[in-house]
C-alpha cells in the first residue's frame, strides 16, 4: 500500500485523524523548506488555509465530500486563477490577474482540493527543462544540478519532493510526461478534448492538453475523474458522459497486447534507459500482458512536424500580448509599432521569441505549403501509424525520454538538442492520444527513468489500469529522493 496515496490521505481525512488545515500547513512548510527547488512561482498560504478551513468545517458538519476534498495540491501557473496572478512563466504576464477561473481550477475547487500555489514552468510552456521560465530554472529533487524537465517542471519537482501529492500540468509535446519521467513520478496526458482547455493559457491550441502529475496511476485516475468532462466553453471539448477511470483499476492484464515500438528505442536513446524500460516491460509481461514488436514508420518525422505546427499556432496565439489591454507594456514606446515591438521584445524571453519567429515564417505567404501544410500531412501520417498499430495492439510502449534528466545549462544554448528531448512524446500530441509516463527504476547515474504507455483515444481507463497493475507489482514509483519527508 502506497503510504502517500490520495486514497490513503483521503481516508485519514475522512476519519478525522488529520485535518485539511494540517495537511495544507504541512505542504506549505515543505514548500518553504524546499525553496531551493524553485518549484513554485507563488504560494498562496492565506487562500489555501481559508479553503482548507472551509473543507474542515464542511466535514465537521457531516457534508458528503469527494475523494479530493482537503487534499493539498498545486496548479501549474498556466491555469487562470481568479484574483491570483497567473504568469505562464513569463515576464509578459508578471502582473496579470485573471478575472476568472479555468475549467480545471473550477473542477478541482468543486472537488474540495486545496491549491497551495502556482508552480514554475517554461515560459508559455515552451521548453523541456523549465529553464526558459522568467522566474528562474527549477531544480530536480533527485539532483539539484539537474533540470526537472519541462514545461511542467515545477509541478513535477513539487510532487517528487513530497510537497504535494499531485499537481496539474499541461502537455503540448510531452510537458507532463517528460518531467514526470525526469522526476520519478507518474504523469498523465489525457486524450485531446477529454479535459476542457478553457482558462488554460494557450501555447499550441491543437496540441495543448491539461494533465496530471502524481505519485501513482491510481492518484492520476482520481484527479482525471475530477477534471474530465464536457465543457461548452471549449469547442474542442468532447462529450463522453459517465466514464470513470478510478473505479476501473483492478482489471487483470491477461490478454493485453502491448506494442513495443522499435523506433522509440533507436537513435539517441541512452542504453541504460532502454534497459530499464525493457525491464519494466518484462514486469508487465509477468502481469499477464503480451509484448508485440511493432513499427511506427513516421515516428522520426514527429519532431520536425511538431516544431512547425506548434510554433505556427503559438505565433498567432501569442499575438494578443501587444501591450494594449493587459500584460507588459513598454514604457518607452513612441509609436504604435514601438508599443508592439518593445512590449513584446521586453516581455517575451528568447525561446518564446524564437518560436514566434519560426511560426510566423512557417505561415508566411510562399512558405505555408512547404512548411505548415506539409507538417499537417506528416501529422496525418503519424496519426495513421498509430491507428494501424492499434489494430493489432491495445497499448504502445517505449521510453518517455531518451535520456535521464540533463544538467541545468547543458542544453540551454542548443535549441535543437533541447527539442530532441521530446522525440518520443510529441507524436502522441500530434495524434491527440492519451499517454502516461510511469517510473521504471533508475539509470546508471541514479536518476529516474520513465516508461511511456500510449493508448487509443479515450482509452484512459485501459491505460491507467495497465499502469496501476505495473505499480501494484513494482515499487519504483514509491522511491523518493533523499531528504524527502
Amino acid at each position, binding site marked *: 500500500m502506497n503510504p502517500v496515496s490520495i486514497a490513503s490521505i483521503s481516508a485519514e481525512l475522512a476519519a478525522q485523524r488529520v485535518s485539511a488545515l494540517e495537511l495544507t500547513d504541512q505542504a506549505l512548510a515543505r514548500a518553504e523548506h524546499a525553496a531551493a527547488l524553485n518549484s513554485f512561482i507563488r504560494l498562496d498560504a492565506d487562500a489555501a488555509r481559508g479553503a482548507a478551513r472551509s473543507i474542515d468545517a464542511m466535514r465537521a458538519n457531516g457534508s458528503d465530500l469527494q475523494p479530493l476534498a482537503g487534499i493539498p495540491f498545486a496548479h501549474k501557473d498556466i491555469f*487562470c486563477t481568479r484574483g491570483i496572478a497567473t504568469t505562464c512563466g513569463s515576464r509578459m504576464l508578471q502582473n496579470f490577474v485573471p*478575472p476568472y477561473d479555468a475549467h480545471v481550477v473550477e473542477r478541482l475547487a468543486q472537488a474540495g482540493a486545496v491549491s497551495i500555489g502556482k508552480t514554475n514552468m517554461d515560459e508559455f510552456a515552451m521548453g523541456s527543462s523549465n529553464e526558459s521560465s522568467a522566474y528562474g530554472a527549477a531544480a530536480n529533487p533527485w539532483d539539484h544540478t539537474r533540470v526537472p524537465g519541462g514545461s511542467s517542471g515545477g509541478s513535477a519537482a513539487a510532487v517528487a519532493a513530497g510537497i504535494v501529492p499531485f499537481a496539474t500540468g499541461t502537455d503540448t509535446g510531452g510537458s507532463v510526461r517528460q518531467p514526470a519521467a525526469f522526476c520519478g513520478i507518474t504523469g498523465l496526458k489525457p486524450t485531446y478534448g477529454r479535459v476542457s482547455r478553457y482558462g488554460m493559457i*494557450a501555447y499550441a491550441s491543437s496540441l495543448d492538453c491539461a494533465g496530471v502529475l502524481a505519485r501513482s496511476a491510481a492518484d492520476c485516475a482520481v484527479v482525471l475523474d475530477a477534471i474530465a468532462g464536457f465543457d*461548452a466553453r471549449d*469547442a474542442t471539448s468532447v462529450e463522453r458522459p459517465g466514464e470513470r477511470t478510478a473505479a476501473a483499476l483492478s482489471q487483470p492484464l491477461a490478454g493485453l497486447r502491448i506494442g513495443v515500438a522499435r523506433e522509440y528505442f533507436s537513435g539517441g536513446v541512452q542504453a541504460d534507459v532502454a534497459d530499464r524500460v525493457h525491464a519494466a516491460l518484462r514486469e508487465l509481461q509477468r502481469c499477464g500482458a503480451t509484448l508485440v514488436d511493432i513499427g511506427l514508420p513516421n515516428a522520426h518525422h514527429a519532431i520536425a512536424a511538431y516544431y512547425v505546427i506548434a510554433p505556427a499556432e503559438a505565433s498567432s496565439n501569442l*499575438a*494578443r500580448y501587444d501591450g494594449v*489591454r493587459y500584460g507588459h507594456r513598454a514604457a518607452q514606446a513612441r509609436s504604435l509599432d514601438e508599443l508592439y515591438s518593445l512590449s513584446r521584445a521586453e516581455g517575451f524571453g528568447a525561446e518564446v521569441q524564437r518560436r514566434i519567429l519560426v511560426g510566423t515564417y512557417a505561415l508566411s505567404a510562399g512558405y505555408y505549403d512547404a512548411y505548415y501544410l506539409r507538417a499537417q500531412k506528416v501529422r496525418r501520417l503519424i496519426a495513421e501509424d498509430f491507428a494501424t498499430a492499434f489494430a493489432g495492439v491495445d497499448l504502445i510502449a517505449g521510453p518517455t525520454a531518451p535520456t535521464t534528466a540533463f544538467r541545468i545549462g547543458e542544453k540551454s544554448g542548443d535549441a535543437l538538442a533541447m527539442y530532441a528531448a521530446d522525440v518520443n512524446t510529441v507524436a502522441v500530441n500530434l495524434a491527440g492520444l492519451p499517454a502516461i509516463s510511469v517510473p521504471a527504476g533508475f539509470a546508471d547515474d541514479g536518476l529516474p527513468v520513465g516508461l511511456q504507455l500510449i493508448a487509443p483515444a479515450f482509452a484512459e481507463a485501459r491505460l491507467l489500469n495497465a499502469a496501476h497493475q505495473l505499480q501494484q507489482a513494482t515499487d519504483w514509483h514509491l522511491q523518493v529522493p533523499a531528504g524527502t519527508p
Partner: protein
Amino acid sequence: MKTAAQPWQAVIGLEIHAQLSTASKLFSGAATAYGADPNTQASLVDCAIPGTLPVPNREAVRKAIQFGLAIDATIARHSVFARKNYFYPDLPKGYQISQYELPVVGAGRLSVRVDDGRTIEVLIQRAHLEEDAGKSVHDAFHAETGIDLNRAGTPLLEIVSAPVMHSAAEAVAYMRTVHTLVRWLGICDGNMQEGSFRCDCNVSVRRSGDTQLGTRTEIKNVNSFRFVEKAIEYEIERQIRALENGDSIVQETRLYDPTRHQTRPMRSKETADDYRYFPDPDLPPLTIAEADIARERTALPELPQARRVRYVTELGLPEADADQLCSDRATADYFEAVLAALPGQAKLCANWVLGEVAAKINEAVIEISAAPVTADGLAQLLTRLREGSISGKIAKDVFAAMWNGEGDADAIIQARGLKQISDTGALAAAIDAVLAEYAGQVADYRNGNEKLLQFFVGQTMKRTRGQANPQQLNELLKQKLAGN
C-alpha cells in the same frame, strides 16, 4: 490598317459585409446591440483575455445558411474557420476569425433589376462568416486613442460577388438587391448609418473585348448607396484618364472621401500585410447536417424576386409598383394584408400603400412595421371608400386623422360626421338652398355661363361639409339648373 481603339469597359465586383442580427456575438455570449457605452458589451472572449476560447454561435450559422439558400448556393457541409493575422489595437486577439479556403456558402446567383429596366444575373462567388473588429476612438482622450470593443466579435456575413458588373448603376442595383434580400430574410437589419451593411468595391477598366481583367483597386468601407455610386463613377473615370495618359494603375486600397466625391490611396498592396491565414485550431470544422439545411429550406419565405413576378402576373400590377412593394418584405406583407380585405383591388391597395402610407412613413422616418395605421386599419378605410361611404378626398383626411391617432376609420367618419351624403333628398335640399342663395349666378348659368357649375358644386360641398357624393351632386345640380 490601324483600327480605332475599342471603348472602355469597367469591371466591378463587390464585397458586402452584412452584420447578422443575432442577439449575441459570433464566438462569445456578449450582446451585439448598437450604441451601448464603450466596452460594456465586451466579454472576456471579446477582450481576448488569456485562456478564453471561441465557441461558434449556431444562430449566425443558421442565418448564413438562409442567405445561401436564397441565392441558390451550395451550403458547405464542412466549412473551416481560419485566422487572419495582423496587429491593430482594436483587434484584441491579434487575429480575426474568418473563413478562407472553405466558406460556409459557396457559389450562387442573384437576379438584379437595373434602373434602366434591364435585368442582370450577378454571380456570387461565396459568402463566409467572420467576426468584426472593435473601434478605435480618436477624439475622446487628449493625445491618446481609446479602444471600444463592443463591436469586436459581432457576426458578419461577407458576400463576395464575381467581377461581373460594368457600371456604377449595376453595382448599386446589385447592392440594393442584396440589401433587400438580407432584410427580407431577417438576417441583417440593413442599417447603413450604424455600419450594419457596408461594402468594399473592386474596380478595374479594360478595352471592350479584352478577356484579361485590368489592374484593380479596392475602395474600402463605403456605407451608402449614393457613395458607392459616386465612388465607382469617380474611380472608373480616374482609371480611364490614367490609362489614356499612358499611366498604369497601381493595385491598391483606396478610401472614398464623401465630401469631395473622390477616392484616394489608403495603402499600397506592395506593403500590405501578409495575413498568414491558417485554420483556427480552437475551432473544429463547422459541420452542418443535411437535415439542418432542409429545415432552413422549408422555413424560407417567398423571396422578393418570386413575389415581384407574382404581383405582375397574378395581380396585374405595373412592374414599377411590384418593384417598390417588394423592396421591403414588411411593405409587401402590409400590402398583402390590405389586399386580403379587398379582393381584386390590387391597384387601389398598391396606390395607397405606395402613396399615402409611404409618404407618411418617409416623413416620419419610420419603418412600415411602426406605422400607426395598420394594414387592417387601412383595409377598413379603403372598404368604406369602395362602398362609396366616403369620397377619395375625405378618405385622405380620414387617413391623416387615423395616422394622428384619432381612432379607426369608422370612428373618425362617425365622429366627424363625414359619411358621404348619397341620400338624394338631403342632397337636393342642400342644392336648393345654394341655388336660392345665388339666384343671380343661377340666372347667369342659365344664360349660358356653364363654367359656373363648379361654383355651385363648391358651394354645395361647403354646405355639406364635403360629404356630398360628388357624382350624385354633379348629376343633381345639372338637373336642377336645367330647371327640373
